[in-house]
């Protein structure tokens, strides 16, 4: 779908979407602007996960930890130090990327399920520490009432801030994935042995991909603090990580923008289904099963395949 549009006029369409999103706070009630901000943050997280899972083929089962590390870093800088806020925003992704690199160094020695399992155990270690270290992280209560700097404190200001950063990050991710590095990464995903044989340093490429992805996850975490004004250990818990996994699947692994769509669907469903029933996870489970049976390529993948089909039949005529 993306190609179909971008072939016509990529910049115009992207700019159009951006202008449209930028106008929304002028007409929408505050609650919806808040939900949209949350969708953007979650979308950034899902996109960053897809860098390693969809394009890198690594079972990054505990991506949520890096989101949490970013959130906690900003929260700690804002509450425990008197440093200016921008240092917190810079430190959050950097700390996440460092943690991602360290955990990655252990994990890339393994493959597939073992990779994922080791990552879950290392991630759970971080979760357990945050969960118990009351003096620093507030333990299971988390940290609430974080003083957000004035210029992004209002809902619409934070909306524009997040939208701007999301757009920049997506542009950077797009460039990365369409660079030689991105192609190499996909080659490593599809056939690591052959890549090794032709002289590609497989583990180095995987580590770089993990670092980039965790960098963006940390940034998403810091933006979560901007939206919610609080952090809690659930951000580091593995259930969140699997939920982000679902977003990628729902939107479409092998598409660029799929995870954004997945994040939007999940966050919107949770918000609006949650109003009617407390059994929200039941609904999510049923949706997931329907998806596995009927749309294994994800919504975006399905749409892309449909458009491709139509194009092919059109050219045949």
């Amino acid at each position, binding site marked *: 779908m993306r190609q179909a549009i971008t072939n016509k006029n990529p910049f115009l369409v992207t700019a159009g979407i951006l202008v449209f999103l930028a106008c929304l706070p002028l007409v929408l009630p505050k609650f919806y602007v808040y939900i949209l901000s949350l969708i953007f943050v979650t979308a950034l997280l899902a996109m960053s996960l897809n860098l390693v899972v969809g394009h890198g083929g690594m*079972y990054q089962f505990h991506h949520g930890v890096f989101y949490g590390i970013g959130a906690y870093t900003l929260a700690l800088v804002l509450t425990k130090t008197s440093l200016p806020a921008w240092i917190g925003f810079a430190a959050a992704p950097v700390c996440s990327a460092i943690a991602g690199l360290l955990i990655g160094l*252990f994990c890339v*020695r*393994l493959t*597939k*399920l*073992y990779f994922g*399992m*080791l990552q*879950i*155990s*290392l991630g*759970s*270690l971080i979760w*357990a*520490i945050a*969960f*118990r*270290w009351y003096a620093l992280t507030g333990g299971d209560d988390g940290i609430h009432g974080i003083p957000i700097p004035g210029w992004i404190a209002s809902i619409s200001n934070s909306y524009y801030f997040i939208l701007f950063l999301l757009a920049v990050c997506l542009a950077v991710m797009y460039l990365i994935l369409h660079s030689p590095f991105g192609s190499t990464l996909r080659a490593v995903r599809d056939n690591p042995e052959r890549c090794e044989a032709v002289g590609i340093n497989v583990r180095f490429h995987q580590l770089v991909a993990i670092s980039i992805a965790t960098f963006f996850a940390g940034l998403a975490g810091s933006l979560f603090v901007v939206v919610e004004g609080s952090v809690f250990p659930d951000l580091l*818990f*593995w*259930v969140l990580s*699997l939920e982000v*996994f*679902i977003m990628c*699947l729902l939107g479409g692994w092998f598409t660029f923008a799929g995870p954004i769509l997945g994040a939007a669907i999940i966050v919107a469903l949770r918000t609006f289904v949650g109003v009617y029933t*407390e*059994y*929200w*996870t*039941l609904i*999510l*489970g*049923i949706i*997931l*099963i329907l998806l*596995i*049976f009927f749309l*294994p390529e994800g919504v975006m993948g399905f749409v892309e395949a449909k458009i491709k089909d139509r194009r092919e039949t059109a050219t045949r005529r």
Partner: protein
Amino acid sequence: MEWSESISIAALGSHLLVGLSRAMILFIVTSGLSFVLGVLRVPNVAHGSLYMIGAFAAFSIVNALGGGAPGFWAALVFAPLIVAGVSLVAERALFCHLYEREHLMLLLFTFALMLILGDLVKMVWGADYRSIMAPEFLRGSLPVFGSPFPKYNLFLLIVGPVVAVGLWLFSTRTRIGKIARAAAVDREMVGAVGINVSWVFAFAFVLGCFLAGLGGALVAPTVSVTLGMDHDIIIEAFLIVTIGGLGNMWGAMVGSLIFGITQSFGVLFWPQFAIVFPYAAVVIVLTLRPKGLLKSVW
């Protein structure tokens, strides 16, 4: 952190026993997970939910039969059977159609099952904390190492090895056990000699889930039965099978012992960060032996 002088031999001994009895529960749950992993090659995320259902079902059975010894034994038999029934329905209705798909899809299916079962438990039993008492003859404690030790934990120390030996005999001495082990190694070949692999898988899945239910029923008298116990156990069970060697039953035993004992010694040495110890042990094991301590069947 107090490295107090109060850590005596007696305290060490009783914490070791507590750790061992915890390890027995972990083993019963994990051996089921490991069995499913070995035969079906699927990390069953819903395993913890089935364990939770086992615990809640045991609660209902004990309460329905008046809390005595008959209720307890009935719970130990029927709670796992209820869990096995639930898993049989899920497997035959949905899961068996997915075996040809890639791994990640199977994993996500079991995650979806976990989400659904978690909410179903909330619908049936509600979000309250529940607890049941052990039967009369297992209450109280016996002196061990000069300090009192709960009888129920001693009971667990007997049940665990019994289950282990039973499972070992089952998988090495019976026809269906041998077929299941063969299917774990080479499922095409098992199909080629005329065995219905789909039913072998169903059987393995249901047996694994039965063990989850048994673990849940056994743990019910020692903890408060509540929503969320699925999340806690499943992550521990996964780590245990990983450090033990995927699909290896004795690996599940070794992993459970490591996990249970580090946890209870953690409580002794540094209570605030007790939950960190087992995770750290897992990291150390996987750093030294990336594929687990014992041979994986994969």
